[in-house]
């Protein structure tokens, strides 16, 4: 990884089969409470023939993360590799990051007294938080820190069709370009034939 590497998610909408495996893997890996979904699979153009597709959405770890800019208590920090994380001990759960987010990534538990909203929770790209790496405190607040262990985030690791890919932007783009070069891009109108799947 070069020093300018930025970690990115990419969901290949041509490969995603709407199995919800990524979101289940995420919920399980981080033992998320009910009502918190860091990753969601959404179906778009539902019912429109040839246009319907699904994709997986979570925090996109934006370069110019608007959540980080609007936070009134400065609880966000962006790692050198571009992963956007936040400190739950500073967050006040005001919800401004949710208003600023184009992807609806920030999640809020509403399990306080009278259904009060707690502090924000979001996808960490399996990179934990500001607490000591792999400590109990980190696991409790942010879930696993798979990045520190050299593992791929849980969602991408289990994706059965490898639609969801994650890594530094250059590698993700390389994989995607190779896919487009080998099988083409665009509407999949007919199933793959022998030639497309295995060459001549």
């Amino acid at each position: 990884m070069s020093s300018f590497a930025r970690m990115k998610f990419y969901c290949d909408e041509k490969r995603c089969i709407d199995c919800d495996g990524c979101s289940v893997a995420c919920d399980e890996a981080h033992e998320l409470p009910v009502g918190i979904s860091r990753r969601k699979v959404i179906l778009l153009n539902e019912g429109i023939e040839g246009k319907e597709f699904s994709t997986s959405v979570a925090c996109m770890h934006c370069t110019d993360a608007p959540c980080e800019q609007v936070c009134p208590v400065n609880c966000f920090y962006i790692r050198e590799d571009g992963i956007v994380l936040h400190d739950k001990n500073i967050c006040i759960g005001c919800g401004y990051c949710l208003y600023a987010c184009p992807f609806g990534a920030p999640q809020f538990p509403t399990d306080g007294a009278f259904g009060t909203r707690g502090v924000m929770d979001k996808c960490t790209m399996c990179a934990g938080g500001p607490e000591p790496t792999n400590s109990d405190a980190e696991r409790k607040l942010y879930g696993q820190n798979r990045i520190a262990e050299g593992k791929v985030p849980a969602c991408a690791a289990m994706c059965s069709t490898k639609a969801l890919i994650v890594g530094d932007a250059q590698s993700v783009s390389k994989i995607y370009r190779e896919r487009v070069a080998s099988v083409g891009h665009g509407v999949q109108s007919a199933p793959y034939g022998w030639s497309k799947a295995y060459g001549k």
Partner: protein
Amino acid sequence: MKKVILLCLSMISAFAQSYAGKVPLVSQNQGVYDGTSRLNSPELLHNIMLYQNWGGLFVNLQIHWFRTLFFGITVGVLVVFFLHYIVIGPKKFAHDGKAIYVYNLFKRIIHWMAALAFVIVIPTGFMMIFGKELGGGTLVLDARYLHSIGTVLFIVSVIPMFLMWLIPMLATFDDVKWLFMAGGYLTKKKVVVPAGQFNAGQKMWFWLATLGGFVMIITGAAMYFEDFDLAILKSLNLDQIDILRISAIVHNFLGMAVTALFVTHLYMSLFAIKGSLDSMISGNKSEDEVKYMHSSFYKKLKKEDKI
């Protein structure tokens, strides 16, 4: 009606964006466009496509304007009143004369309930706005919870307050005259101020606190409950999240106005008119004060032989 709301919203958006500017996002949709790609479908992620409407505006206002404006307005109002106190000084009225009973016990209780609500809600609101300076965490989180609790007290007090003062707070011709002479606050002389039971300044504060207060409650509730679905949103081409963004924008701007007039109200009652606080404690105003500060009301009482 729907079209009017739509027109108003788009006008506010256009006006505000011409001032605040748009937030430039680093990367636009960089998907490969080959004419068949579904990634460029206009249906794609409706929410992201419409992000610039309110999301971009909210982000820009929150980054560049809200904190600065709150700070500027608060400091500005305090400085103006400090200078007023030094240069022009407070008004003093004789308190040994006859007393006129103006506020009954019910009105005073309602007033002090609302006052307590404001004393809770305004400082906790400021704690959230300037959360960075306080370091965030439990302190500011608890301030946020207290902000909601203060709101409950405000809801309970604002409804009877709106009803009990609705009639005397309606605008009269005296208010125009009052505004032209700035309520007589710019002169050291004791002048007869044209005003009924309430002057134009008090009326402004009343309407902002009640009608503005209702808007604050609604926008605050939207942000508190966060997840709700209203059928009307679709027809206005708004997403659920847009309501939260609009609520935050409206709540912040109204908050500035409420803060400014709340500080004004405190200054007037505690410093600018000596002894005027008594009327909210005992319910009595001195005859001298009513004669000058509420001349029309005084004449009316005289005519009705109540003094």
